[in-house]
């Protein structure tokens, strides 16, 4: 049985799709066959971030409605082995998503894949509820600011009451906090919430802290998961988060402001 991971947040624009792409790529790089599914019907973005937007022939809705086979709709990644993308439909209405349909797709994926990453749309409407319904794990993506934390709190409540595991009285969905767009400099001036503040409110284990980085925007425009960028703090933080998810112990990095050494300060002054 495949492990189903939902990447969710409640709030929009916090980095769900960026995280889904990198997390799925990270799992695939570890050797596990992984599929990542875009649940944001009508506003598909995942295929852009994965750089396969020109290779989408069939999408999730086509598979649910029996217009295409799952095999035809899965797009094999050109850079990472074992990584497949299932795009959302841009032209269909999100009413085309059904719980039974998703269940059937996940069941078929389970025959072949080890991990299925579900990229949830923002909000707590139908698309988001369906994305989290079958989840075994939830990666809750949160920015260090108060409205994002509030929405994450809300979605954690939804996970605890409206997931399949909750409805069937099974062991609860395993929750992981992923703090993104973390800027230690702005944290130290009090503009952003500290990691500890967010942990205290959400009260779930911290999977990783992804530092704010210009690399993320560049990767989005290039259509490449951030995690594949070699020399980037954000990529390193995503690799660490995936490693922690897989059970390794990795120290948290990038929580402190980079100290400017005397030399560097001197050079900057000279330049």
């Amino acid at each position, binding site marked *: 049985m495949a492990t189903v991971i939902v990447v969710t947040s409640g709030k929009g624009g916090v980095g769900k799709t960026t995280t889904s792409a990198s997390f799925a790529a990270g799992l695939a790089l570890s050797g596990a066959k992984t599929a990542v599914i875009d649940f944001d019907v009508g506003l598909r973005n995942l295929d852009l971030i994965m750089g396969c937007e020109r290779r989408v022939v069939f999408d999730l809705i086509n598979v649910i409605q029996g217009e295409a086979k799952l095999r035809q709709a899965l797009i094999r990644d050109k850079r990472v082995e074992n990584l497949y993308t299932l795009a959302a439909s841009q032209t269909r209405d999100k009413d085309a998503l059904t719980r039974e349909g998703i269940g059937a797709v996940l069941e078929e994926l389970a025959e072949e894949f080890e991990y299925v990453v579900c990229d949830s749309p923002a909000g707590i409407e139908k698309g988001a509820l369906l994305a989290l319904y079958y989840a075994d794990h939830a990666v809750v993506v949160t920015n260090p600011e108060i409205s994002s934390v*509030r*929405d994450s*709190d*809300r979605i*954690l*409540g*939804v996970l*605890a*009451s409206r997931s399949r595991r909750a409805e069937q009285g099974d062991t609860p969905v395993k929750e992981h906090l992923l703090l993104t767009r973390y800027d230690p400099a702005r944290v130290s001036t009090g503009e952003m919430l500290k990691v500890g503040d967010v942990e*205290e*409110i*959400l*009260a779930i284990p911290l999977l990783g802290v992804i530092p704010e980085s210009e690399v993320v925007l560049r990767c989005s425009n290039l259509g490449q998961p951030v995690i594949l960028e070699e020399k980037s703090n954000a990529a390193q933080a995503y690799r660490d988060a995936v490693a922690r998810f897989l059970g390794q112990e990795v120290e948290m990095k990038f929580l402190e402001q980079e100290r400017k050494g005397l030399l560097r300060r001197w050079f900057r002054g000279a330049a």
Partner: protein
Amino acid sequence: MHVVRASEPSPSQPAFRLRGTSLSLVVLELHETAPEAVLPSLERLLSKAPAFLWQAPIILDLASNTPEVGAPEVGAPEVGQTDLARLLPGLRRLKLHPIGVLSGPEGWQTQAAALGLPVMPRGTQRSLPLPSERPQQNQRKGLDLQSQERAAANRTSAEPLETEELSKPTLMIARPVRAGQQIYADGGGDLIVTASVNPGAEIIADGHIHVYGALKGRAIAGARGNREARIFALRLDPELLAIGGYYTMHGDIETAVIGKGVEVSMEDRSFKFRLIGQ
């Protein structure tokens, strides 16, 4: 196929289990018994919110001031008997399910019994008579220190707990109460949360509220008007507090108690904050 019947329980797995429970039910209090007087206005009321009592089990209660059957006369008058019998189909047509009546005048109980409706004792009535001083002692229990001690003394004397106490179960919540969630300990009970109550969450109890964590959401104690109810929090930082219908907002709470262990009570219609666990 193996079928377990109640009459032939298999030795390993009994076919049934008896357990006690307490449920919240809607009571239809009748000031008149004639269906012509009751049903039209009830139908109008239900049509405003058709889903509210759709297929709901209800209990019929005869208000004590009802003229026909309310008087404690023995033997049911013919008219009254047909009233209840005629009322039931009307209620079922409105998608209500009468499942019993609360005890009342004998005539009323006889009518109900004749129709196969069980007669239920009132919440304040006990099936067993209790020592006369006990209920009085119980009334003001659990608030001031003196009576707390008395309550403790009651327990240690190995007497069984009173039924009234058992019918007000405490609701225990061990998970964080999150934004958008609402938890209500009704039926007169207390609410204990052994985690935090987050901003945007709401906890309500007819009795007291205890939060063994940070209270950052809204807390409403004594929701049915009990001003003796109290709120206890390990770290008090609420959006709103209410006791017995009175409320106060975060900005009106003295800053000295914010973030501390606090007991909140209502005295002379104003909130009192007392630091605890210092």
